[in-house]
């Protein structure tokens, strides 16, 4: 029997644990802001429905946040266990940024979470609102720093190398605000808001389908549909900017996402196809002439580079990227459509009693989560074969650990994550299935 390849297992372990993890922060970034808005509305208007909604979503937030914390601790140690060479070499640059994440985000969230969850009667509404704001601020700061880290790995800047092969920080401003960071941060924050809007909207729709007269579900559905209608178009614009930035700094990633093997002017947009990395072509392609160039270069005759411009060993896997990217875009367009639909019905004053939209909202409640995972697969697989783009390969980054050790820990993570987070997802869904009740403490 062949021993399993430790590098592949370590990569799979990272992909598996981070895919689970990213779902929870996406929800907690959005829900923390939503809770702050709800509490502000409650304090501002004194209407009880807002407090009802706050208490309702607070419980769901607590479950998601708890799962985010424990799956996040796993991430922070996994750099050392499976990727120790990467940790040694890139640690001087990315370590301090993660240190800032702990100091400015994790402590802030954790320190005020207890007050937010349990402390309303002890500290009074105003201080409690401060606690809610601090938790929301913490989720923002966390996104800021971890996306700075990820973006630096995608578009490294502001560093030099020492004799031991370590990246040495030269200019922290250039490191943090590296070329892809602003776009990635914006794209991710909007994604978190959209993800949450569709979860909240789907929940509201579910309860409206059961009883359209209750005020609390009407509030949440209406607020969520406003978010969908406003944020989905913004996200498409932000995604376009992010794509153009990627084209500039990581053109091979774009070539793989688009399934282009050959460089050509006036490149088509492929709607469907099966990229074949060995044969260097995309089979069964269905294409729209020149649209690829128009989207990527904003010129129908612009030149788009194909994967053949890079040696085989430096190409990211188009078979994965082509489809992960399309799943993300498809999910984004679906969210855009629901937002638009809600605007039309809102104008006709039929937002709450159109079963079609309500059912669509219920059905599309997990679409944001799908888009987040597909988007991260796109950007992370697209960074391959490097951990630090163009500078440190993934193969060089791994610890020299036996395949059995990595395989055993991977198995343990798979079993535990599916059990524990499966139960957590079940509890969250059950909470969302229960209608919000007034005067509950």
């Amino acid at each position, binding site marked *: 029997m062949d021993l399993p390849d430790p590098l592949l297992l370590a990569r799979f372990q990272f992909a598996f644990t981070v895919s689970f993890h990213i779902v929870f922060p996406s929800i907690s970034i959005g829900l923390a802001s939503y809770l702050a808005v709800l509490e502000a509305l409650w304090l501002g208007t004194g209407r009880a429905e807002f407090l009802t909604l706050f208490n309702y979503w607070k419980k769901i937030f607590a479950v998601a946040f708890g799962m985010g914390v424990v799956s996040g*601790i796993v991430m922070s140690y996994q750099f050392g266990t499976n990727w120790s060479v990467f940790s040694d070499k890139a640690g001087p640059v990315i370590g301090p940024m993660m240190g800032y994440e702990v100091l400015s985000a994790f402590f802030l969230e954790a320190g005020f979470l207890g007050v937010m969850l349990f402390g309303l009667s002890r500290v009074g509404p105003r201080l409690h609102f401060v606690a809610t704001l601090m938790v929301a601020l913490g989720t923002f700061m966390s996104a800021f720093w971890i996306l700075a880290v990820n973006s630096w790995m995608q578009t490294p800047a502001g560093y030099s190398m020492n004799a031991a092969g370590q990246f040495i920080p030269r200019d922290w401003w250039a490191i943090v605000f590296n070329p892809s960071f602003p776009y990635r941060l914006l794209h991710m924050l909007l994604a978190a808001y959209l993800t949450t809007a569709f979860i909240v909207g789907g929940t509201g729709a579910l309860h409206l389908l059961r009883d359209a007269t209750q005020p609390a579900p009407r509030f949440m559905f209406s607020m969520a549909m406003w978010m969908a209608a406003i944020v989905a178009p913004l996200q498409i614009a932000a995604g376009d900017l992010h794509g153009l930035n990627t084209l500039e700094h990581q053109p091979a990633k774009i070539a793989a996402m688009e399934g282009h093997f050959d460089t050509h002017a006036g490149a088509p947009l492929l709607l469907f196809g099966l990229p074949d990395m060995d044969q260097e072509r995309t089979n069964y392609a269905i294409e729209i002439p020149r649209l690829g160039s128009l989207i990527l270069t904003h010129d129908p005759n612009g030149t788009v580079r194909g994967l053949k411009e890079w040696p085989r060993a430096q190409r990211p896997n188009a078979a994965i990227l082509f489809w992960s990217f399309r799943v993300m875009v498809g999910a984004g367009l679906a969210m855009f459509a629901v937002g638009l639909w809600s605007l039309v019905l809102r104008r006709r004053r039929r937002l709450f009693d159109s079963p079609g939209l309500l059912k669509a909202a219920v059905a599309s409640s997990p679409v944001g989560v799908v888009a987040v995972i597909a988007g991260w697969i796109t950007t992370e697989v697209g960074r391959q074969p490097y951990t630090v783009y163009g500078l440190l390969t993934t193969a060089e980054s791994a610890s020299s650990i036996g395949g059995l050790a990595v395989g055993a820990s991977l198995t343990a993570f798979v079993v535990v994550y599916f059990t524990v987070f499966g139960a957590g997802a079940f509890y969250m869904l059950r909470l969302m299935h229960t209608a919000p009740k007034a005067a509950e403490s």
Partner: protein
Amino acid sequence: MTLDLPFVWACLIAFAVIAYILLDGFDLGVGILFPFMRGEATRDEMMNSVAPVWDGNETWLVLGGGGLFAVFPLAYAIIMPALYAPVIAMLLGLVFRGVAFEFRWKTRRGKFLWDWAFAAGSTTAALAQGIALGALVQGIPVAGRAYAGGWWDWLTPFSLVTGVALVVGYALLGSTWLVYKTEGETQQKAYGFARVTGVTTLALIVIVSLWTPFLSDAFMHRWFAWPQVLFVAPVPLMVALAAFALLDGLRKRQERRPFCATVALFMLCFIGLLISFYPYLVPTSVTLREAAAPDSSLSFLLAGAAVLLPVILAYTGYSYWVFRGKVNRHGAYH
């Protein structure tokens, strides 16, 4: 004047680690005691005594690990693969016990499962941490810039003893915390457990302390060479004082003194550990200066830590103050 950045950071990481051991120590200890404390009301009370603060407590672990990554990346890159199995076991244990805080209130039929997850997860995490600590004290072989030992090196009689010692020690922290935070029946049971775990902890401290110098000449020299012994002798003497304060406090049924004495005991053991380690970060392979990231990394993060750590301590203190006093059995939000 220039700051000795690696030394300053070693102090800060040491602070994060002891903060973690003390703070998460008592809430892990509450989990370790769970199987021995029967009755739903008692368990709810135990859970509520730590529910508002456990997440903040565990964040010190992320600061300890993340800080090591940031400022001593070489040490992080050597220690994590060397302690692979215990680190993974600790992480999985923390997953189970961390989610239990929320999950056990979300189900009636399945509540016992999450009670079990809380207890088993807490015990596993504590045992794994103790084993990791013991394995680190024994020393880690290094070649070049990487761990050079085998995958079972961490498992030795010594590391098993330190593993058990930390489980019992955390149980002591947990039971004295419960003495401080609860009343009535729960408190009475906690007094009993504090006595048993207190005596056991003290015995294990003696065993580990006597064993450690025999692990390496450097440790032996540090603790028993003349005249150094004059500087290090106060540590065991103060351990004896703290031990007396603990047992005396328990006998007199005092509420706060046993917890404070246990905290002092942990701090003294930790200081003893630092005395043994210095100047090594990975005994006896890598010193803290060898492992340090360049000054541009250390100073960048130090600027933030200098501002943020006092703020963190302030609002952490505030959070503890908000939830001061005895736990209300019925008043929690769940």
